[in-house]
């Protein structure tokens, strides 16, 4: 087992361990807190639709299967995990995103009982043809609920316009048709590939003792040979598919999502630089935000995000607007200007202070810390590397980052009001 204690610039310490079977364990002790927040996750999400263990025989699975598997894993032969958590009083949940599936609980008492349940149910899949069929009904309802949500639809539409081959453009839950193809055998096949400890992580923050937690986990993780997972290279071109995509829905106010497609950014410093650049371009103290608001083009729903994993990167501006094309034009104008002139040094210092403050805030609650640890585990960044990168960030780094935004390689998605 590899093990080290990593000190944060903010004073926290993280135990970072990799067990012999490859499972990553990250723990931050917060002894003054009443509760603890624990995540047991796998580096497996909706984009993992095609994979191989030998690099030759690739298996393709139905869209939405990672999310389906998440739902099913709560069940076991003698009841479900929720019933077990009910006996301890913990709050338990799970979520699937593009590149990860996480099972979690938070509790104020009986931490080890809860951790035992979490480690146990995730390691013991139980699927039958009948239980799979029943879940198809429930997830079908969930898909329909999201299909009625313009905010969700405008987001996936922009991904469809940006990405030609990459499965990031597909809804995390799949479609009613794709999930109909899922059966128990497929679920076991995905489980046996991606729920191998070498592809998994446990992240915990709260009123716990890290060494004690590590030894508890070690005893409960099933021995296993690590597995080689080769994900299909979807050969995504640099170029977008469309520059515009519009859909009509029963919505009271139009929605937009404007995205720039970038080459995949893997360097943590560049990622931090892009985040700070986004704040300077469109944050609420930027000239762009003021002009868009004063002209009545955006409201408080407006937001900008760096959207990334190890195989895609995009910058997305999303919100509500009666004039989405004007918003797009203004964003393009600002991006073009900053790419040429660079950012004001004082404004950069403000944005950097603001980003530092966000780090301080995130380390003030156990949920925030656990989510950050999860991010470290999935992205492969060592704990606190991002905070250190921010400290060293210069205005020149941010000026370089804004040049990655290519106006010609962007797409605007709009959900218009149905007449």
């Amino acid at each position, binding site marked *: 087992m590899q093990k080290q204690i990593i000190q944060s610039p903010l004073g926290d310490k993280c135990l970072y361990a990799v067990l012999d079977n490859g499972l990553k364990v990250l723990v931050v002790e917060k002894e003054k807190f*009443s509760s603890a927040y624990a995540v047991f996750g796998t580096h497996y999400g909706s984009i993992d639709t095609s994979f191989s263990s030998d690099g030759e025989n690739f298996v393709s699975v139905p869209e939405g299967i990672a999310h389906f598997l998440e739902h099913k894993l709560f069940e076991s032969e003698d009841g479900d995990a929720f019933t077990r958590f009910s006996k301890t009083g913990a*709050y338990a949940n799970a979520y699937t995103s593009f590149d990860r599936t996480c099972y979690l609980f938070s509790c104020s008492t009986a931490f080890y009982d809860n951790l035992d349940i979490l480690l146990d149910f995730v390691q013991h899949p139980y699927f039958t043809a009948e239980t799979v069929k029943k879940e198809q009904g*429930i997830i079908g309802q969930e898909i329909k609920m999201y299909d009625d949500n313009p905010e969700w639809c405008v987001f996936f539409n922009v991904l469809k316009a940006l990405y030609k081959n990459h499965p990031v453009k597909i809804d995390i839950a799949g479609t009613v048709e794709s999930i109909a193809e899922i059966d128990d055998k497929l679920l076991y096949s995905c489980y046996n590939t991606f729920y191998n400890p070498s592809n998994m992580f446990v992240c915990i923050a709260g009123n716990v003792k890290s060494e004690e937690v590590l030894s508890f986990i070690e005893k409960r993780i099933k021995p296993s040979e690590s597995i080689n997972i080769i994900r299909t290279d979807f050969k995504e071109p640099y170029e977008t598919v469309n520059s515009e995509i519009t859909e009509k829905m029963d919505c009271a106010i139009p929605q937009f999502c404007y995205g720039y497609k970038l080459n995949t950014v893997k360097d943590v410093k560049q990622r931090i630089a892009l985040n700070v650049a986004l704040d300077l371009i469109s944050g609420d103290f930027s000239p762009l935000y003021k002009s868009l608001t004063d002209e009545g083009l955006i409201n408080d729903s407006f937001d900008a995000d760096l959207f990334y994993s190890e195989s895609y990167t995009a910058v997305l501006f999303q919100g509500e607007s009666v004039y989405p094309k004007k918003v797009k034009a203004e964003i393009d104008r600002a991006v073009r200007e900053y790419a040429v002139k660079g950012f004001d040094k004082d404004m950069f210092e403000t944005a950097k202070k603001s980003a530092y403050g966000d780090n301080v805030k995130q380390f003030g609650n156990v949920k925030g810390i656990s989510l950050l640890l999860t991010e470290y585990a999935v992205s492969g960044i060592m704990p606190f590397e991002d905070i250190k990168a921010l400290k060293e960030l210069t205005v020149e780094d941010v000026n370089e980052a804004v040049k990655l935004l290519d106006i010609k390689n962007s797409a605007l998605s709009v959900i218009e009001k149905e007449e």
Partner: protein
Amino acid sequence: MHYLQTDIAKGVKGIFIENDRFNTTYISVNFFLPVLRAEQSKRVVLPYILTSCSQKYKTYTELNRALADLYSADIYASTQRIGNCVCIKIALSTINDRFALNGQSSVKQSVDLLMSLIFNPKVENASFFEENLNTEKRKTEEQILSEMNDKRAYSADRLLSEMFKNSEHGVGRYGSLEDVKKIDGKNLFDAYEELLRSAFVTVNVIGEKLPDGLFERISDCFSGIKRENITDVKVLSPLKATDSINYVTERQNVLQGKLGMGFSLDTKAFSQSEALIFADIFGGGPYSKLFSNVREKMSLCYYCNASVNYGLGYLTVNSGVEAINAEKAQNEIINQLTAIKNGDFGDFEISSSKKAITDNCKSHYDNQSLLDRWYTSRVIYDGFLSPNEYAQTFEEITKENIINIAKTERPNTVYKLLPQEEK
């Protein structure tokens, strides 16, 4: 964790919750006024205009720059319902001085900023500026429209509007588009003055220390105001039981339908804890009747939750259903309520519910905004219980208590949002 409650001025309470686990200091100023249909939209716009600029920070760009320079200090504005009142909240969260760089006092500077927003607004001749007001009005109008996009929130709000259609509480969360349009700089300033004059006010501070002189400064700010007709937050007007059920069906271009059911509940004879445990066993956690039967066993909906409002004496159930299952889900929800009344639940559900809610109460101590919400909402009840003290009240609740409170339900409204009928 220590706790201090003090009278700052007439009808103004200061509450300091000393808690050294956080990296930030959280301060909220809460103004309680009775719910009034005609005033709702103004009261929604008011905290937003107050937190968009001030005499010192003339534009929101200046204000937001100052907040960013204070290490991303956050300002929150909201208007929510608590008991019979609306609560207009203006809050601030800022990093503690030990994290600030170069010896900067982020807490003191943040307190100065908060005071400037609440007590020195950007006004002229007793009127807010039209340019600032128009932006906030537009954003509120868009917020009203935006809620219609979120069918889950929209249908829950519509259910309440129908249940309280004959009372002030029937007004929508943001008022109405018409009322927003009627707001001008002058009548909004009048609403601001009324707020300072007659609202019951609480100032919650959650952090490792009480900022120097904070309560004294607030006291000074109120000293020049003639405080009168101060809102009595403890007056409650529960939903009355009716003889007939109000059935409402609305159709829109949606794929998934929504079913909302409202019931009056005679909460007066029961404690708030009893009402909470009842609603949780009926439709709260995964051990609840609605989750385990309507969602899991029968797969009738993706979500199906019950919640109770103790002060206003009602129970609501909100669910997402396919149109063809709406009738079936409605019947099954009633069946599960009947099962509770018949005592068809056991120690597992009761102890699971008590444990889950107790755990939730304890976890409040790790979250400043939850603690703030807790102490803001407790002012309408006698006995100002802490989350831990409240959790202790669950111990004595029995199965009979839950059955008895369930038996007081009377159906009030069935609201459905369904897809358009095929032509």
